[in-house]
């Protein structure tokens, strides 16, 4: 499992391919709730004001889309600068979308009060969400600014890429319903499929390089 370090030369094509969809989708996530057709059919779910509610929902959808790409790229067998760059960009834009979601949940719905967050969400979910945000952000800082390929960085990155989707799985597939559950299932299938593929490739490579074991 190759560590994707910070020294990369991201091409214009790579940046365009990730930033443009990110910018368009984030704009949509924030502006579509303004549409009267959506806002006037809101039904006070969770007692959150309509605009905030939909921006919270749509931003987490966008987070998951980029998370799926980042996870697949991270676990995809083999290594190439191109894949590393796409991983980093998806990992970064996914985090930005998550930051928007985080702002609307923690900052707006819970008025920036951790006490309120814990009171409403409970210790497990609240801590898990905060850890997601902190860890993801921490790893991004490492990925962009730390040149070292120290083992602890590689290990924490692998763990982050397991822990964060795991919490999304619990939230999206186990707890929630509707479209976000579909995204959660898609994420799960994509990650598991990638890991299986990685396993098969490694096994295949091992068989080729070790014919004596046949």
């Amino acid at each position, binding site marked *: 499992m190759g560590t994707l370090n910070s020294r990369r030369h991201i091409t214009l094509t790579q940046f365009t391919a990730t930033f443009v969809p990110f910018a368009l989708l984030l704009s949509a996530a924030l502006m579509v709730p303004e549409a009267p057709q959506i806002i006037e059919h809101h039904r006070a779910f969770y007692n*959150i004001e309509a*605009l905030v509610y939909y921006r919270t929902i749509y931003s987490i959808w966008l987070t998951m889309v980029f998370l799926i790409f980042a996870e697949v790229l991270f676990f995809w067998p083999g290594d190439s600068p191109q894949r590393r760059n796409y991983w980093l960009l998806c990992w970064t834009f996914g985090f930005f979308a998550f930051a928007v979601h985080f702002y609307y949940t923690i900052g707006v719905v819970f008025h920036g009060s951790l006490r309120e967050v814990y009171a409403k969400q409970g210790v497990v979910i609240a801590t898990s969400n905060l850890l997601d945000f902190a860890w993801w952000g921490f790893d991004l800082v490492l990925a962009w600014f730390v040149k070292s390929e120290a083992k602890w960085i590689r290990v924490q990155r692998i763990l982050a890429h397991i822990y964060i989707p795991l919490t999304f799985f619990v939230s999206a597939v186990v707890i929630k319903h509707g479209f976000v559950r579909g995204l959660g299932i898609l994420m799960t299938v994509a990650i598991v499929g990638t890991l299986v593929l990685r396993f098969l490739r490694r096994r295949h490579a091992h068989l080729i390089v070790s014919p004596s074991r046949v």
Partner: protein
Amino acid sequence: MKRFLQIALICISALLLVFVFVFLFMESRWVKPRHLEKHEAFLYGPTGTELMPLAVFKVLPDMFPEYFQPAGKEAGDWIDQFGFNRGTPNVNEGLPLGFSITNYRPKSGAPSPVQFVGFSCSMCHVSQIRRSGKDAVLVEGMGNYSVDFIAWVDAVRSSLLNEDRLTVDSISQAYEKKFNQPLSFSEKSMLRVWLPGTRKFFKDNLPKYDEPFHGLAARDSRLMPNGPARTQPFRNLIRIVLDRPATNGDNAFCKVPTLYEQGNRVWGQYDGSVGNRLSRSVLAAIATGATIENLIIPDVSNAVIGAVDYTVTLKGPRYEQLFPEEAAKIDPAKVERGRQVYMSSCASCHGFRNTQTGKWENGPMTGQVVPIEQIKTDPERVNFRYNESLPDALYAFFPDGHPLRPKREDIRPGPAGTTRGYINSPIESVFARAPYLHNGAVLTLAELINLKPRRALFYRGANLYDPIDVGLSTPLQPETAIYYRFDTNMRGNSNQGHDYPWAFHGPGWNQAALEDLLEFLKTMW
């Protein structure tokens, strides 16, 4: 070329993102949270009932004079013709009392760059007591006995459904003509969103709400059976909560209630069906167009709570304040004899004012619901269809955890009782509560206590106050300002029942005692 396209795409996307964040920043500034004092909340506070942009509100009556001045231009403006209370210049944009201004969009409560107009509690719960044609006193807390709200709503609906004459362009032109300045970009933009959406809402609801009446038809009691100072609260709740047209049995007319010293009662509504002041106001707001979505907005919910709190201790007026000349002629001996009649015949149900402490003392039966078979007043209010299913539906209408969700035990019929009847309520400042009975079918106290026969036919509107018989006077024929023909023989309009102390000319009837009682009631506050 590819590089150029990529850079262009990135720039466009980045610009879009910047635009979105600038928009979000501006949007966060459209609403400036404001804390209203209780009194201010009662007079001007929002109730989540935003209806139309302020700019539209200001020109709509000019664009449709046939709807908003049904008796003709010479009969006064729409404020006079629909019985609203004229506002104060430079206060609340000079709007009539009872209209709130916010930067929230209708229904969703999302922030708006332009101001919207909705309703405040004071629309229905502040009344003018008209002592003569030009002499009127505003009484806070008194049910507005002149406001013809349902007819006004029909005038609004008629305008909004008029697709030929009400367009963004026609509104812009009318505004520019009236104020010599064009609508701003944001006002026009909001109009383009608001008008089709609101029109669609009213069109989609025509099967439930039917075509609105307008013009003189809106003043015809055969077509518009509510009339001034009355609503059909359950009709709208049934439409909104049960999604039914409420066409069968919608004769549950209710007088706009008076709200003096609400702290003296636990259960509200004439039938004692809601046991929480805040829930009562929330349901009233829902019936007039608020949604459970915008009621959670802190500005709205705080204003509703503030207005409700204001009524907890809101004192009614005293007779001598409003009618000093007549008060000077009152014979104290008659008042004292009348007090004894009151204490023996009325106080056990309605309670009395303790003049030593100034507090209202409830009687042993105050707060009890008297079965309809016993009180014998008009039964439509408690016998309407869905009477039994509505409470559960109302409760289910609010999602779990909604801050304004009523408790199920606070709504009857339910765990707290199923009696169909009318509640014995305190009657603070009873002289300033006309018309009387829950359906407003009795004009004066003299008729209510059966000192005088109850009139079977009278006219309603901007009636003068009668300080002698205590209540509303009526002309023999309809007049421009007192236009509504109230026939007590029509369904829901019965003036029968509540024959206390005695039925008119019935066993025990004592004219002298009733005259004394009337004098006492004038002085009771």
